[in-house]
């Protein structure tokens, strides 16, 4: 059996995001081999009812977004609820910037985002960890579950992602010139 099949089996059984490191350890392979296996798995799943969702060092198996209508009937619950403008703005910033601190989010939005961040965290849509550069603050990043709720399997699938990155680089260039 090929390595991608073993990975598929493990991810199916785990039912939650698995770290590449852990898969490598279980299969006795190195991480590069696992990454290659994940790519093969992703390609072979493309025509099926399952998708491989990846974010950074994590991977999880999920149902194809095209089947969400039916899967929802089985799960029977509205998972997201209403986000509100503030929540969506905060999500957008975290999604496109990747790892972001609260100060940066507040700065862009012009208001305090503590309440929004808390709500998003309770819903499991974002994660936070201690900022390695400043231990007194946190950095926020999208959770793999957020990708699943958006029906995307990697961040490059976000709407206008490439354009956004390009614009963003322009802004940085400009502010570099200014300073």
């Amino acid at each position, binding site marked *: 059996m090929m390595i991608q099949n073993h990975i598929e089996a493990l991810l199916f059984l785990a039912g939650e995001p698995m770290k590449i490191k852990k898969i490598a350890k279980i299969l006795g392979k190195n991480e590069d081999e696992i990454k290659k296996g994940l790519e093969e798995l992703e390609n072979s799943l493309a025509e099926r009812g399952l998708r491989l969702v990846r974010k950074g060092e994590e991977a999880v198996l999920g149902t194809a977004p095209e089947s969400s209508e039916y899967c929802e009937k089985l799960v029977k619950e509205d998972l997201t609820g209403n986000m509100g403008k503030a929540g969506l703005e905060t999500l957008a910033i975290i999604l496109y910037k990747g790892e972001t601190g609260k100060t940066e989010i507040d700065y862009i939005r*012009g208001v305090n985002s503590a309440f929004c*961040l808390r709500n998003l965290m309770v819903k499991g849509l974002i994660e936070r960890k201690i900022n390695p550069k400043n231990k007194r603050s946190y950095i926020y990043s999208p959770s793999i579950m957020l990708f699943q709720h958006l029906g995307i399997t990697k961040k490059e699938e976000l709407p206008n992602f490439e354009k956004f990155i390009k614009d963003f680089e322009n802004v940085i260039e400009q502010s570099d010139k200014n300073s």
Partner: protein
Amino acid sequence: MYNVQVQHFQGPFELLLELIEQSKLSINQISLAEIADQYLNYLKQMERFPLKEVGSFIVIAATLMLIKSRSLMPSLKLSREEELEIEDFEVRLKEYERFRSISREIEKILGKRIIFSPEEGRFSGWLETGIFTAPKDLSISNLKTSLEQILNNIATKEILPEKIIKKTVSLEEKMNSLIKRLESKINLCFSDLKSDPECKKVDLIVNFLAMLELIKRDYITVSQTQVFGEIEITKT
């Protein structure tokens, strides 16, 4: 004058963008100077002000006034810090605009085509054989740390000290009440204004200023026969 529907805005940038878009302007310092008055007017007529965000709305108002003052008085010397603040302001607003439009895209797809993963416990039954085996790291102290971590993860509400602010005595109010009094009486003595038991020192001062302002506006004339004597006020 543009009419802005009074609605609840999440933040000052959102309000500002709304105003700029309604005037069909693009974001730059000229449009910001033009919009400054509208922004202030809007704040004035806002009935349900989001109390928590008052500060952020006012900070933006201050920057807008700075931008406007400079556009009216090009000779106005700004400090380096103020210059930077204005430049930065424009960049921030543009950045916010970008994220606002992205957030609308996100709204369109969020929760529409969900990729489901097996729910926790759905398969775990197959793994267990009905016997509970405690994991090695299960201990009271570990449970305590986990619980603490969970509690720490819930951001606590910031409680800011409250302070009661004394109602300000407005010059405008005093002017209006003076005018009202003069409408019913032809002339008035300044000392009459003191007779009100509610009248404090500060009211007296503002009354005096109101009187001066009304003289300037040619609404009243005053006469005083001797130093520190009674001031008589008559309508012009």
